[in-house]
Protein backbone atom coordinates (compact mmCIF):
# COMPACT_ATOMS: atom_id res chain seq x y z
CA UNK A 1 0.00 0.00 0.00
CA UNK A 2 1.19 3.46 -0.91
CA UNK A 3 -1.09 6.11 0.68
CA UNK A 4 -0.09 8.68 -1.94
CA UNK A 5 -1.09 6.45 -4.84
CA UNK A 6 -3.57 3.83 -3.63
CA UNK A 7 -7.10 3.83 -2.33
CA UNK A 8 -8.90 1.29 -0.17
CA UNK A 9 -12.64 0.90 0.20
CA UNK A 10 -14.36 -1.48 2.59
CA UNK A 11 -18.12 -1.90 2.54
CA UNK A 12 -20.73 -4.33 3.85
CA UNK A 13 -23.39 -4.88 1.20
CA UNK A 14 -26.67 -6.28 2.55
CA UNK A 15 -27.08 -8.94 -0.14
CA UNK A 16 -25.71 -12.46 -0.56
CA UNK A 17 -22.24 -12.85 -2.03
CA UNK A 18 -23.55 -14.81 -5.04
CA UNK A 19 -25.79 -11.89 -5.97
CA UNK A 20 -22.99 -9.30 -5.67
CA UNK A 21 -20.78 -11.57 -7.76
CA UNK A 22 -23.43 -11.87 -10.47
CA UNK A 23 -23.76 -8.07 -10.60
CA UNK A 24 -20.06 -8.06 -11.54
CA UNK A 25 -20.18 -10.92 -14.03
CA UNK A 26 -23.54 -10.58 -15.82
CA UNK A 27 -23.20 -7.89 -18.53
CA UNK A 28 -26.79 -6.61 -18.31
CA UNK A 29 -26.50 -6.26 -14.52
CA UNK A 30 -23.03 -4.71 -14.76
CA UNK A 31 -24.30 -2.05 -17.18
CA UNK A 32 -26.83 -0.90 -14.59
CA UNK A 33 -24.39 0.24 -11.93
CA UNK A 34 -20.98 0.75 -13.59
CA UNK A 35 -21.71 4.35 -14.67
CA UNK A 36 -23.80 7.06 -12.99
CA UNK A 37 -27.20 7.89 -14.50
CA UNK A 38 -28.15 9.55 -16.81
CA UNK A 39 -25.03 8.29 -18.62
CA UNK A 40 -25.88 5.08 -20.46
CA UNK A 41 -23.38 2.23 -20.18
CA UNK A 42 -22.91 -0.36 -22.89
CA UNK A 43 -20.90 -3.47 -22.02
CA UNK A 44 -19.00 -4.63 -25.10
CA UNK A 45 -16.92 -7.25 -23.28
CA UNK A 46 -17.15 -8.70 -19.81
CA UNK A 47 -15.08 -11.82 -20.09
CA UNK A 48 -14.50 -12.48 -16.40
CA UNK A 49 -11.55 -14.89 -16.49
CA UNK A 50 -7.78 -14.28 -16.23
CA UNK A 51 -6.73 -12.54 -19.46
CA UNK A 52 -10.34 -11.78 -20.42
CA UNK A 53 -11.38 -8.33 -21.59
CA UNK A 54 -13.46 -5.63 -19.91
CA UNK A 55 -14.72 -3.10 -22.43
CA UNK A 56 -17.41 -0.54 -21.65
CA UNK A 57 -18.68 2.43 -23.62
CA UNK A 58 -20.72 5.39 -22.46
CA UNK A 59 -23.34 7.63 -24.01
CA UNK A 60 -25.36 10.66 -22.99
CA UNK A 61 -28.08 10.21 -25.64
CA UNK A 62 -28.06 6.43 -26.25
CA UNK A 63 -26.95 6.98 -29.87
CA UNK A 64 -23.37 8.24 -29.76
CA UNK A 65 -21.16 5.95 -27.63
CA UNK A 66 -17.69 7.02 -26.44
CA UNK A 67 -14.94 4.71 -25.14
CA UNK A 68 -14.95 4.33 -21.36
CA UNK A 69 -12.92 1.39 -20.06
CA UNK A 70 -10.73 -0.97 -22.09
CA UNK A 71 -8.98 -3.31 -19.66
CA UNK A 72 -7.94 -6.89 -18.94
CA UNK A 73 -8.73 -9.18 -16.03
CA UNK A 74 -5.60 -10.49 -14.33
CA UNK A 75 -7.02 -12.69 -11.57
CA UNK A 76 -10.48 -14.18 -11.22
CA UNK A 77 -11.34 -16.42 -8.27
CA UNK A 78 -14.97 -17.52 -8.34
CA UNK A 79 -17.05 -15.43 -5.90
CA UNK A 80 -13.86 -14.37 -4.09
CA UNK A 81 -11.67 -12.02 -6.06
CA UNK A 82 -11.44 -10.02 -9.28
CA UNK A 83 -8.31 -8.13 -10.34
CA UNK A 84 -8.22 -6.05 -13.51
CA UNK A 85 -5.92 -3.41 -14.96
CA UNK A 86 -6.29 -0.70 -17.58
CA UNK A 87 -2.54 -0.74 -18.31
CA UNK A 88 -3.19 -3.67 -20.66
CA UNK A 89 -6.17 -3.20 -22.96
CA UNK A 90 -8.58 -6.01 -23.87
CA UNK A 91 -6.25 -6.99 -26.76
CA UNK A 92 -3.34 -7.21 -24.27
CA UNK A 93 -1.68 -4.12 -25.71
CA UNK A 94 0.30 -2.13 -23.09
CA UNK A 95 -1.30 1.31 -22.72
CA UNK A 96 -1.14 4.35 -20.40
CA UNK A 97 -4.75 5.53 -20.25
CA UNK A 98 -5.86 8.92 -18.96
CA UNK A 99 -6.42 10.17 -16.36
CA UNK A 100 -4.65 7.45 -14.36
CA UNK A 101 -3.40 3.95 -14.97
CA UNK A 102 -4.35 1.48 -12.27
CA UNK A 103 -4.89 -2.05 -11.08
CA UNK A 104 -8.13 -2.66 -9.18
CA UNK A 105 -8.57 -5.58 -6.81
CA UNK A 106 -12.08 -6.44 -5.63
CA UNK A 107 -12.58 -8.99 -2.86
CA UNK A 108 -15.86 -10.66 -1.91
CA UNK A 109 -16.35 -12.46 1.42
CA UNK A 110 -19.28 -13.60 3.54
CA UNK A 111 -20.43 -11.29 6.30
CA UNK A 112 -23.22 -11.87 8.88
CA UNK A 113 -25.16 -9.04 7.21
CA UNK A 114 -24.41 -10.04 3.62
CA UNK A 115 -21.18 -9.48 1.75
CA UNK A 116 -17.89 -7.98 2.87
CA UNK A 117 -16.83 -6.03 -0.21
CA UNK A 118 -13.29 -4.67 -0.35
CA UNK A 119 -11.58 -2.69 -3.06
CA UNK A 120 -7.91 -1.78 -3.39
CA UNK A 121 -6.99 0.39 -6.37
CA UNK A 122 -3.26 0.77 -7.00
CA UNK A 123 -2.42 3.70 -9.26
CA UNK A 124 0.63 4.53 -11.32
CA UNK A 125 2.22 7.85 -10.40
CA UNK A 126 0.63 10.50 -12.65
CA UNK A 127 3.08 13.22 -11.63
CA UNK A 128 6.15 11.23 -12.66
CA UNK A 129 4.55 10.69 -16.04
CA UNK A 130 3.76 14.40 -16.19
CA UNK A 131 7.38 15.39 -15.60
CA UNK A 132 8.47 13.14 -18.45
CA UNK A 133 5.89 14.48 -20.86
CA UNK A 134 5.50 18.08 -19.82
CA UNK A 135 3.45 19.18 -22.81
CA UNK A 136 1.23 16.14 -22.83
CA UNK A 137 0.63 16.69 -19.16
CA UNK A 138 -0.50 20.18 -19.82
CA UNK A 139 -3.00 19.08 -22.45
CA UNK A 140 -4.44 16.58 -20.01
CA UNK A 141 -4.42 19.10 -17.25
CA UNK A 142 -6.27 21.60 -19.44
CA UNK A 143 -9.27 19.31 -19.82
CA UNK A 144 -9.37 18.73 -16.06
CA UNK A 145 -9.24 22.47 -15.54
CA UNK A 146 -12.10 23.00 -17.98
CA UNK A 147 -14.19 20.64 -15.89
CA UNK A 148 -13.16 22.30 -12.64
CA UNK A 149 -13.86 25.69 -14.10
CA UNK A 150 -17.31 24.72 -15.31
CA UNK A 151 -18.05 23.48 -11.79
CA UNK A 152 -16.77 26.75 -10.40
CA UNK A 153 -18.83 28.73 -12.89
CA UNK A 154 -21.90 26.77 -11.88
CA UNK A 155 -21.23 27.69 -8.25
CA UNK A 156 -20.75 31.35 -9.07
CA UNK A 157 -23.95 31.50 -11.15
CA UNK A 158 -26.12 29.98 -8.44
Amino acid sequence: MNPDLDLVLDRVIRAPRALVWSAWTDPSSFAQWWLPAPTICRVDRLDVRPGGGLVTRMSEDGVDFQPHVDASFLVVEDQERIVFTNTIDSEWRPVAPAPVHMTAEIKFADHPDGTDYRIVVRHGDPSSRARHHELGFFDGWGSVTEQLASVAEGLVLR
Partner: protein
Amino acid sequence: MAQYSAAVDEVFVALADPTRREVIRRLGRGPTSVGELAREFPMTLPSFMKHVRTLEGSGLIRTTKRGRVRTCALDRDRLALVEDWLAEQRRIWEERTDRLDSFVTGHQAQQQEQQQEQKEEKP
Protein backbone atom coordinates in the same frame (compact mmCIF):
# COMPACT_ATOMS: atom_id res chain seq x y z
CA MET B 1 -7.64 22.89 6.82
CA ALA B 2 -9.67 26.12 6.64
CA GLN B 3 -6.60 27.80 5.18
CA TYR B 4 -6.35 25.01 2.62
CA SER B 5 -10.05 25.46 1.63
CA ALA B 6 -9.61 29.20 1.27
CA ALA B 7 -6.65 28.64 -1.05
CA VAL B 8 -8.66 26.15 -3.11
CA ASP B 9 -11.58 28.61 -3.31
CA GLU B 10 -9.28 31.32 -4.62
CA VAL B 11 -7.91 28.97 -7.26
CA PHE B 12 -11.44 28.05 -8.36
CA VAL B 13 -12.47 31.69 -8.60
CA ALA B 14 -9.34 32.47 -10.59
CA LEU B 15 -10.11 29.63 -13.00
CA ALA B 16 -13.77 30.58 -13.42
CA ASP B 17 -12.98 32.92 -16.29
CA PRO B 18 -12.11 32.00 -19.90
CA THR B 19 -9.41 34.71 -20.24
CA ARG B 20 -7.64 33.60 -17.08
CA ARG B 21 -7.86 29.93 -18.11
CA GLU B 22 -6.32 30.84 -21.46
CA VAL B 23 -3.50 32.69 -19.68
CA ILE B 24 -2.83 29.58 -17.57
CA ARG B 25 -2.79 27.41 -20.67
CA ARG B 26 -0.48 29.86 -22.44
CA LEU B 27 1.92 29.93 -19.46
CA GLY B 28 1.99 26.13 -19.51
CA ARG B 29 4.34 26.54 -22.46
CA GLY B 30 6.72 28.67 -20.40
CA PRO B 31 7.11 32.09 -18.71
CA THR B 32 5.94 35.01 -20.84
CA SER B 33 6.01 38.80 -20.46
CA VAL B 34 2.77 40.65 -19.68
CA GLY B 35 3.10 42.67 -22.90
CA GLU B 36 3.39 39.57 -25.04
CA LEU B 37 0.47 37.88 -23.25
CA ALA B 38 -1.76 40.96 -23.47
CA ARG B 39 -1.36 41.15 -27.25
CA GLU B 40 -3.16 37.81 -27.57
CA PHE B 41 -6.31 39.08 -25.87
CA PRO B 42 -8.79 41.57 -27.34
CA MET B 43 -8.94 43.94 -24.38
CA THR B 44 -7.16 47.00 -23.00
CA LEU B 45 -3.97 46.57 -21.00
CA PRO B 46 -5.60 47.78 -17.73
CA SER B 47 -8.40 45.20 -18.13
CA PHE B 48 -5.86 42.49 -18.85
CA MET B 49 -3.80 43.53 -15.80
CA LYS B 50 -6.86 42.93 -13.60
CA HIS B 51 -6.88 39.30 -14.72
CA VAL B 52 -3.13 39.02 -14.11
CA ARG B 53 -3.57 40.38 -10.57
CA THR B 54 -6.41 37.93 -9.84
CA LEU B 55 -4.24 35.05 -11.01
CA GLU B 56 -1.31 36.33 -8.98
CA GLY B 57 -3.53 36.75 -5.90
CA SER B 58 -4.67 33.13 -6.17
CA GLY B 59 -1.04 32.02 -6.32
CA LEU B 60 -1.55 30.30 -9.69
CA ILE B 61 1.05 32.55 -11.28
CA ARG B 62 4.01 34.58 -10.08
CA THR B 63 5.24 37.75 -11.72
CA THR B 64 8.68 39.29 -11.61
CA LYS B 65 9.77 42.68 -12.88
CA ARG B 66 13.09 43.17 -14.57
CA GLY B 67 13.70 46.68 -15.86
CA ARG B 68 10.49 47.61 -17.63
CA VAL B 69 9.41 44.05 -18.39
CA ARG B 70 7.07 42.10 -16.11
CA THR B 71 7.19 38.35 -16.67
CA CYS B 72 4.51 35.85 -15.64
CA ALA B 73 5.20 32.22 -14.74
CA LEU B 74 2.97 29.35 -13.66
CA ASP B 75 3.15 28.00 -10.11
CA ARG B 76 2.54 24.28 -10.52
CA ASP B 77 2.37 23.62 -6.77
CA ARG B 78 -0.74 25.77 -6.59
CA LEU B 79 -2.22 23.93 -9.56
CA ALA B 80 -1.69 20.66 -7.69
CA LEU B 81 -4.13 21.94 -5.04
CA VAL B 82 -7.08 21.51 -7.37
CA GLU B 83 -5.62 18.59 -9.23
CA ASP B 84 -6.32 16.12 -6.43
CA TRP B 85 -6.69 13.13 -8.73
CA LEU B 86 -6.65 10.53 -5.92
CA ALA B 87 -9.65 12.13 -4.17
CA GLU B 88 -11.43 12.15 -7.51
CA GLN B 89 -10.72 8.42 -8.05
CA ARG B 90 -11.93 7.66 -4.53
CA ARG B 91 -15.17 9.52 -5.21
CA ILE B 92 -15.68 7.54 -8.43
CA TRP B 93 -15.20 4.18 -6.68
CA GLU B 94 -17.35 5.14 -3.70
CA GLU B 95 -20.23 6.24 -5.90
CA ARG B 96 -19.81 3.12 -8.03
CA THR B 97 -20.01 0.97 -4.87
CA ASP B 98 -23.15 2.88 -3.76
CA ARG B 99 -24.78 2.03 -7.09
CA LEU B 100 -23.73 -1.64 -6.90
CA ASP B 101 -25.10 -1.76 -3.36
CA SER B 102 -28.48 -0.33 -4.28
CA PHE B 103 -28.61 -2.48 -7.43
CA VAL B 104 -28.10 -5.77 -5.57
CA THR B 105 -30.19 -4.86 -2.52
CA GLY B 106 -33.01 -3.68 -4.80
CA HIS B 107 -32.70 -6.89 -6.80
CA GLN B 108 -32.89 -8.92 -3.60
CA ALA B 109 -35.98 -7.08 -2.34
CA GLN B 110 -37.67 -7.78 -5.67
CA GLN B 111 -36.88 -11.51 -5.41
CA GLN B 112 -38.22 -11.68 -1.88
CA GLU B 113 -41.40 -9.93 -2.99
CA GLN B 114 -41.85 -12.44 -5.81
CA GLN B 115 -41.31 -15.36 -3.42
CA GLN B 116 -43.81 -13.85 -1.04
CA GLU B 117 -46.36 -13.49 -3.83
CA GLN B 118 -45.80 -17.11 -4.88
CA LYS B 119 -46.36 -18.27 -1.32
CA GLU B 120 -49.53 -16.22 -1.04
CA GLU B 121 -50.84 -17.65 -4.30
CA LYS B 122 -50.51 -21.19 -2.94
CA PRO B 123 -53.47 -22.12 -0.74
